[in-house]
């Protein structure tokens, strides 16, 4: 048994300068290094400005396991392009050895076995150590939070985001943008944002009534760093009232609004910005398209789609950085900015191996303080799993299968539907399932597990609609989630077809019969965006189901037949 502190090879370093092609540097750098905290953090300070990017933490204060996706299909121009490359192809693209720490951090294969060797990832006390180390090199480094921070756990739900606000404030961010935060409801969001000790940014956050920029959220902020003027422009998730319940924040309107983004870039350039950074919650493919349409952005710090890439992707002169999710990674981006121009960029995706990086004791204490009132409830063991439970991927993960089974049995339904969200940590085979674990994959402010009747035709319409939100060849028409997860239903999907023609061969699994468009089926689901949805919260449904099972075993799911991938 190797000790965790000396096994790891630090493999996630990359430098990209203008003209450097996407892949290549990274493997060579990785091979020269071996593992310790110092080496994980090793970075030859470059240029005159440092950016630190965290995003999509989803309220994960403590270390967790997080399996990256096996299926992440790119459609149209994105086909086969980063980040739509997984597993062995991903390792090959970046020269990552099978079974290495990087393979564990960035790909899905042998996840349960590698997790036992390499341990948990994330934890905001470890993230703090990394931030402190970067600030030791560069005291005025900018810490930028891409959003989806105040959502996703038991304590976050019970405190309406206050636990995350308290801990993040202690890390001293300089700016933030938003997505799930708005599902706290606009009153609560406004209350928190009014008290934030840093900038709340979103050039695309508008007043819904007047279709004018919302007063509370500024489009950008200037920072004087390293003798240069840095403009950070915020871009909130564009489709909040569509992907999430708009009735919870009716005063706000969003959208991509790339014509306004161009206007903001021009405005900050005219005001003397030497470098323009966009802190984005667009999702990676939307950022790629935006980088090609809006001129003058130097760096996009990309969030929402939870991709973790060890090298920037270059579109024209814009570097796009993807920093993963759930506190698993921190990106450090050093910039050389001179004479109103970005001359070079050096980047490192730092994996937060929680057994290697020492926790910052002040932040550990602060996290424990947030959790203390709930600790007994959080730790209660509900059951055990024999199977690896994970979610990430375009189609059903095992966590989703378990949730759908819970809906089918607890709500006595023919068909179950579970939202294709990308958050939610993994649980290893043999691990106990605690209440906290269940909340980590279900926590939200619209959790009601409804039970309703739908015709076969309408179920088809739903699958086609969600399918187009994921597989439309134009990223601007995508919402960035994954396919709705289904239980009790099998179907075939051709991802290359247009809307209305992707889904076929819908089958009711319990009878093996084809779904009849005119027949009515009982459907149970959760996370409906409709106001007034009734039913017990889904975490109670899942808890009852797991308690009844005692030990969970999830069978392989072959009910979705994917073609055109």
């Amino acid at each position, binding site marked *: 048994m190797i000790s965790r502190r000396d096994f790891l090879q630090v493999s996630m370093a990359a430098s990209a300068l203008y003209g450097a092609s996407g892949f290549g540097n990274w493997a060579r750098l990785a091979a020269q290094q071996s593992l310790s905290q110092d080496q994980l953090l090793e970075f030859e300070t470059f240029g005159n400005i440092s950016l630190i990017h965290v995003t999509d933490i989803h309220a994960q204060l403590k270390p967790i396991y997080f399996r990256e996706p096996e299926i992440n299909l790119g459609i149209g121009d994105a086909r086969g392009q980063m980040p739509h490359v997984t597993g062995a192809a991903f390792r090959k693209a970046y020269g990552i050895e099978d079974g290495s720490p990087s393979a564990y951090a960035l790909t899905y294969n042998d996840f349960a076995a590698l997790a036992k060797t390499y341990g948990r990832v994330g934890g905001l006390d470890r993230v703090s150590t990394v931030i402190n180390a970067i600030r030791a090199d560069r005291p005025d480094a900018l810490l930028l939070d891409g959003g989806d921070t105040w959502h996703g756990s038991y304590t976050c739900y019970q405190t309406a985001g206050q636990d995350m606000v308290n801990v993040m404030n202690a890390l001293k961010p300089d700016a933030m943008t938003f997505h799930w935060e708005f599902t706290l409801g606009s009153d609560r969001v406004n209350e928190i944002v009014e008290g934030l000790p840093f900038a709340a940014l979103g050039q695309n956050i508008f007043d*819904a009534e007047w279709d004018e920029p919302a007063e509370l959220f500024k489009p950008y902020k200037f920072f004087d760093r390293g003798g240069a003027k840095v403009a950070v422009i915020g871009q909130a998730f564009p489709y909040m009232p569509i992907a999430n319940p708009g009735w919870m924040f009716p005063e706000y309107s969003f959208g991509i609004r790339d014509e306004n983004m161009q206007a903001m870039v021009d405005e900050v350039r005219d005001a003397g910005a030497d470098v323009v950074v966009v802190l984005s919650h667009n999702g990676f493919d939307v950022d790629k398209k935006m980088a090609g349409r809006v001129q003058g952005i130097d760096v996009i710090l990309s969030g929402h789609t939870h991709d973790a890439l060890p090298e920037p992707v270059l579109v024209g002169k814009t570097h796009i950085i993807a920093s993963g999710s759930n506190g698993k990674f921190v990106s450090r981006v050093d910039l050389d900015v001179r004479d109103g121009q970005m001359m070079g960029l050096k980047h490192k995706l730092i994996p937060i191996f929680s057994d290697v990086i020492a926790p910052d004791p002040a932040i550990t204490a602060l996290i424990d303080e947030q959790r203390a009132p709930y600790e007994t409830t959080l730790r209660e063991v509900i059951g055990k799993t024999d199977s690896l439970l994970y979610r990430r991927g375009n189609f059903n993960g095992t966590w989703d299968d378990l949730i759908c089974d819970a809906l089918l049995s607890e709500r006595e339904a023919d068909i179950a539907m579970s939202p294709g969200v990308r958050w939610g940590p993994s649980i290893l085979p043999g691990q106990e399932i605690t209440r906290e674990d269940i909340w980590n994959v279900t926590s939200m402010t619209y959790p009601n597990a409804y039970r309703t009747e739908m015709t076969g035709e309408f179920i088809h319409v739903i699958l086609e609609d969600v399918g187009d939100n994921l597989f439309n060849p134009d990223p601007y028409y995508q919402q960035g989630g994954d396919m709705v997860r289904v239980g009790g239903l099998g179907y075939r999907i051709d991802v290359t077809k247009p809307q209305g023609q992707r889904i076929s061969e819908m089958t009711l699994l319990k009878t093996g019969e084809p779904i009849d468009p005119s027949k009515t089926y009982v459907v149970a689901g959760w*996370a409906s965006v409709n106001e007034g949805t009734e039913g017990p919260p889904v975490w109670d449904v899942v808890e009852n189901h797991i308690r009844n099972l005692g030990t969970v075993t999830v069978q392989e799911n072959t009910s979705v037949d994917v073609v055109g991938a």
Partner: protein
Amino acid sequence: MELSRRETLALGLGAAFLTIMPLRANAAAEDAIAAFTGGADVADGGVTLTAPEIAENGNTVPIEVSAPGAASILIVAAGNPEPGVATFNFGPLAAAQAASTRIRLAGTQDVIAVAKMADGSFAKASATVKVTIGGCGG
């Protein structure tokens, strides 16, 4: 298994059914454009139409159109049962040939703006606006 009426109807999805499949331009849309142009050729470019890619609410979709030098601009929602939306006329003293309004869209479809220029020529722009059930965002 008993399904109570209350539980069955609780979701409220039934009331919100939209036409989800993209709507094709109907003949009435072509007729409306032909009536506006008198059948003259319509060039692309010279008109800027700003519309959301995905509507937050299909019942009230904000759009903005501008065509410097236009005498009038016709807005058509090509997939609506009644495609004609508005015609904006600009007098010689108008400071800018631009207008914004909100329109109702029956489903995913193209919105088309046709401008009649001062010299009698025509130009157009179009944008696809998607209307979706939503939900399930990452």
